[in-house]
């Protein structure tokens, strides 16, 4: 089976976001594999171990993204592709990424493409579905189970806490939700072997694309942090009085009743 994973390098979840001059400061930030994409890498490895084939991890990013690709290789992926847009794309959006990936996948015969449900940075959840649309293949988002049997895939899809059972045919693109699996730690021998695994680097030129072809369809107007939470108020006194005060506050101050 020909398995592909779409991977994004994102801010570490423990990183504090600092905004200055309308930009997020990323100078000293730590980066990780987008946690939802880790589920995708894990699932790809499991499916390959069960059905055979090869796992290729693809990212659209810059030089630094190699670290996250190497980590995926250390977990057990076979090959990695870095589509480096550092010199060609200034402010890409989901359209940009999907368009680049569309060109990349044109001559690939993918049986299964896995992506994260969303990236934790911008959380659009669009790249996977857009890519599937443009490739003309089936897609299922937020999956929590995947069974492949020959040419068909049986999938559990998380729908706001409920489960939808879906049967579909390969090739298929899925986006992975928490609960699908428990991503493994890359083992030490895995880490050492990762440096010998193939990592191909491409630019959009190699995919016969121009800067104009992938120009963002959206424009970011402003970036700001949510207002700081104000200190809460603890009511005191007899319970009956507290209840009365609470109702009055909810009615008159908060105006929610």
């Amino acid at each position, binding site marked *: 089976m020909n398995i592909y994973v779409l991977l994004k390098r994102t801010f570490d979840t423990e990183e504090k976001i600092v905004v200055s001059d309308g930009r997020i400061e990323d100078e000293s930030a730590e980066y990780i594999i987008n946690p939802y994409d880790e589920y995708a890498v894990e699932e790809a490895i499991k499916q390959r171990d069960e059905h055979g084939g090869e796992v290729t991890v693809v990212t659209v990013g810059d030089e630094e993204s190699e670290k996250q690709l190497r980590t995926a290789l250390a977990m057990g992926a076979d090959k990695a592709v870095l589509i480096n847009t550092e010199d060609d794309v200034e402010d890409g959006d989901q359209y940009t990424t999907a368009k680049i990936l569309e060109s990349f996948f044109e001559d690939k015969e993918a049986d299964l493409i896995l992506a994260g449900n969303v990236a934790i940075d911008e959380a659009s959840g669009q790249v996977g579905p857009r890519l599937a649309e443009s490739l003309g293949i089936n897609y299922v988002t937020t999956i929590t189970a995947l069974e492949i049997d020959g040419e068909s895939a049986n999938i559990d899809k998380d729908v706001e806490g409920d489960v939808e059972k879906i049967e579909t045919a390969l090739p298929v693109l899925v986006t992975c939700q928490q609960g699908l699996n428990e991503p493994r*730690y890359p083992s030490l021998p895995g880490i050492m072997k990762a440096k010998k695994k193939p990592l191909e680097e491409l630019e959009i030129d190699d995919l016969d694309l121009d800067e104009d072809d992938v120009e963002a369809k959206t424009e970011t107007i402003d970036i700001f942090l949510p207002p700081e939470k104000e200190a809460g108020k603890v009511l005191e006194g007899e319970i009956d009085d507290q209840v009365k005060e609470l109702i009055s506050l909810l009615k008159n101050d908060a105006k929610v009743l």
Partner: protein
Amino acid sequence: MDFELTKEQTMIQKMVREFAENVIKPRAIEIDKEALFPLDIFEQMGELGILGIPFPETYGGSGGDTLSYAIAVEEVGRVCGSTGLSFAATVSLGASPIYYFGTEKQKETFLRPMAEGRALGSFGLTEPNAGSDAGGTKTTAVEDGDDYIINGEKCFITNASFAKTIIVTAVTGKNNRGKNIISAIIVPTDTKGLTVTSNYDKMGVRGSDTAEIVLDNVRVPKDNLLGDPQKGFSQFLYTLDGGRISIAALGLGIAQGSLEKALSYAKERKQFGKPISNFQAIQFKLADMAMEVELARNIVYKAAWLKDHDKPFSKEAAYAKLYATETAFRAANQAVQVHGGYGYMREYEVERYLRDAKLLEIGEGTSEVQRMVIARQLGC
């Protein structure tokens, strides 16, 4: 010069840190309190290849370098001194001598299970009357046909109750100047006549196994002799030099953990209406701790780097061991002080860091012995 870690070293650091945070840290208080050796944690570390970092793949290892190994010990030590100590001892003292000096057959039989993480190892050097003075070793190994018969006693041996093999040092004869020849012999722990008891009630590193060994007519094949019988002593010295880097790395981890705990507590704890990190008395402590931790890291990494590049590292390993373990003790002590009364309580963990750090100034060559080693390197 290049102070950057390689991609592999960075990945190993990240992986071991995550493992330590998720698997070891939640158990650290219990491991110390109950003095329970966390065998299951070692099984998981073995499966992930952490126990085989500095050994090549041909012997079942992970094919990493000394620096990667030191980084891994640091990350484990940052959350649990007990687990860190047993990790450092099995790799540096149990397995490494076989890798350095063993025959192909010994490597296949004894090193492979350890490098693959399926077995733990020990090094039996210390005796009731021979510690830093290894020349005072009383244990003897007498030739008998194709075997050695070993008699003697060893004490304070890390991991011995859980080890598959113990490398035992013993007197095998006298040289032409009438001095004892001390050799190292690999003794499987299931050999008849070998008794391991673990009754020590320790101040710190309580979850790391420490045992006494009695060897009563223990018979092992002569094939188990490790390395050159005439050069036993210089072999231990090389082994101990390597071991010092790992104990230094463990001290670095404890110092780093102490700093992090003190810093986060100082930012949270409010007195006189503001976080105590606003007071210079506390700031100066934190500044000193941070500086010393970074200096310790530099010398630990340098010693490991020298070893990886086949350069002499004896002096730097002693610098690293001495400085990093004393830094660990100072940092843990200050961390308790910054925490005040809470720091004295087990729940806040820094008192454990202090008890664990104390051992590092004693084990694998006391601070005083490190100074002797350094002085000797200076030509004194």
